[in-house]
């Protein structure tokens, strides 16, 4: 199948959508399909030969962060040229409802179009004002995919449509085969945390609190943290933790490869989030690494963790419960192994080859719908 994929964000900056597009494209290529990805950017990169650059990206503030997108007459011309040259059987755009290459591609496309909605957008005045334009964009999209239940709900409630849910994929083998960082996890047990630890929704303080409780009676317990943020700032709020400060290691921002190695380096991965998590990508990554997960009892997490059979759940924001859950699991390797074993079974459904097959089913359906249309000759 000839597949054209449009990514609205530049590959120069890492991000969830870019990773998703890259993994999807590489999986589809491995399955024997022809894939071309159009993304903002200046030059071709040797690393991703299937990416076609569509010109410079400009930073645009959007939904609380800065997105680098391309939008304008020159981009529109490039999009049309790419589509004409590609002769795609199906066009798959990501996040088409923000002004971007994706939206341009949808507006100038004829034929089968699939779109994936990633973010759970909040209803904004801009969105309401542009309803007419958005309806034109949506109308051209035959297959609508949401990566999470939350993203699907946004479709239903705000845009009057619906969407087919296909979860975010994870490259299970990349995590399974990663080599632990030298010297980890160590004999006394190691807890892991990954993410922006200064962001309140990530709930890092609850983990620190639990760690302070546990560290008192477990002299060799360590905590490994990866992610960007100001370490001194977060530690200043926790005087209790200062005696154990040397047992907490901050790796800072890590590469994709080191992220996989970090997840293999810990006995327990802790996700103390207090909300705002639409899917829980990090959980499927930790589960792929074979690491037992302890997570807040959020809807999204409970779904991924098979109701607590593939990982332990604790009440949201309760650091005492978190400490006792962690303590119990550290003392019970059999239960830890049982949770990890179930996690391995569960995460197989999120493996990219499986997820890509589900995406291919959507492609087939929209091609069937388009194929059944009798194209009327243009007068």
């Amino acid at each position, binding site marked *: 199948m000839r597949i054209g994929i449009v990514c609205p964000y530049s590959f120069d900056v890492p991000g969830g959508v870019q990773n998703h597009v890259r993994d999807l494209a590489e999986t589809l290529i491995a399955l024997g399909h022809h894939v071309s990805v159009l993304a903002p950017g200046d030059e071709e990169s040797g690393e991703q030969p299937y990416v076609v650059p569509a010109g410079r990206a400009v930073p645009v503030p959007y939904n609380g962060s800065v997105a680098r997108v391309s939008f304008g007459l020159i981009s529109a011309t490039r999009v049309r040229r790419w589509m004409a040259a590609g002769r795609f059987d199906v066009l798959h755009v990501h996040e088409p409802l923000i002004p971007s290459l994706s939206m341009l591609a949808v507006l100038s496309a004829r034929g089968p179009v699939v779109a994936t909605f990633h973010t759970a957008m909040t209803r904004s005045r801009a969105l309401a004002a542009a309803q007419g334009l958005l*309806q034109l964009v*949506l*109308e051209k999209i*035959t*297959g*609508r995919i949401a990566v999470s239940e939350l993203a699907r709900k946004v479709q239903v409630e705000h845009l*009057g*449509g*619906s*969407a*087919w849910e296909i979860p975010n994929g994870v490259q299970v083998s990349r995590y399974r085969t990663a080599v632990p960082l030298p010297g980890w996890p160590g004999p006394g047990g190691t807890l892991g945390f990954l993410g922006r630890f200064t962001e309140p929704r990530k709930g890092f303080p609850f983990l620190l609190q639990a760690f302070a409780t546990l560290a008192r009676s477990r002299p060799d317990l360590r905590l490994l943290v990866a992610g960007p943020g100001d370490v001194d700032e977060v530690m200043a709020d926790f005087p209790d933790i200062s005696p154990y400060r040397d047992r907490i290691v901050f790796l800072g921002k890590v590469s994709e490869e080191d992220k996989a190695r970090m997840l293999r380096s810990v006995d327990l991965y802790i996700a103390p989030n207090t909300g705002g998590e639409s899917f829980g990508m990090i959980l499927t990554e930790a589960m792929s690494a074979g690491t037992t997960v302890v997570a807040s009892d959020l809807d999204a997490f409970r779904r991924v963790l098979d109701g607590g059979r593939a990982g332990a759940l604790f009440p949201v924001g309760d650091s005492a419960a978190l400490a006792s859950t962690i303590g119990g699991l550290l003392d019970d390797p059999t239960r830890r192994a049982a949770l990890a074993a179930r996690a391995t079974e569960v995460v197989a459904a999120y493996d990219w080859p499986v997820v890509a097959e589900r995406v291919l*089913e*959507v492609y087939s*359906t*929209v091609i*069937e*719908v*388009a*194929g*059944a*249309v*009798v194209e*009327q000759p243009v007068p």
Partner: protein
Amino acid sequence: MWWVITVVAVVVLVATYLTWLAARVDRLHARAVAAYATLDAHLLRRAVVAVSLAEAAQLPTLVYAARIAVDAQPEDREVAENDLTRHLRDAHEDAAVPEPELSGLVQVSRRVALARQVHNDVVRDALAVRRRLLVRLFRLARKHPRPAYFDVDDPSLS
């Protein structure tokens, strides 16, 4: 003199917009018809899988349910397909059904669910354009029958 030019310009603009709107109405209705054809094909595939599974596992009521679904008149079809979904759900729970048939059944049911989703989405778009003031005023949708949602329970098995 100027008012003539203004009137001509306005007429040309309105005519262009109406032509574009009429093409949009036609396109959305054609797609709704095509989506129904796709859904129909997947429902038939499901019925075929149901019959072969019923014969393998000796479930005579499932054969009847599949036959009724295939032969149903359009107005009875949703009820008949729902009935077939219920029988397939029972078969899916049934330990006597062999594994290869079971995974084929799950896949074909998921394709039905996906086709239904796509169909209902494009029907929603067609109904939305029919509600527009200019479309009603100029009766741009008059040559197309009104598309209808395919209102059935979730046919997917997990």
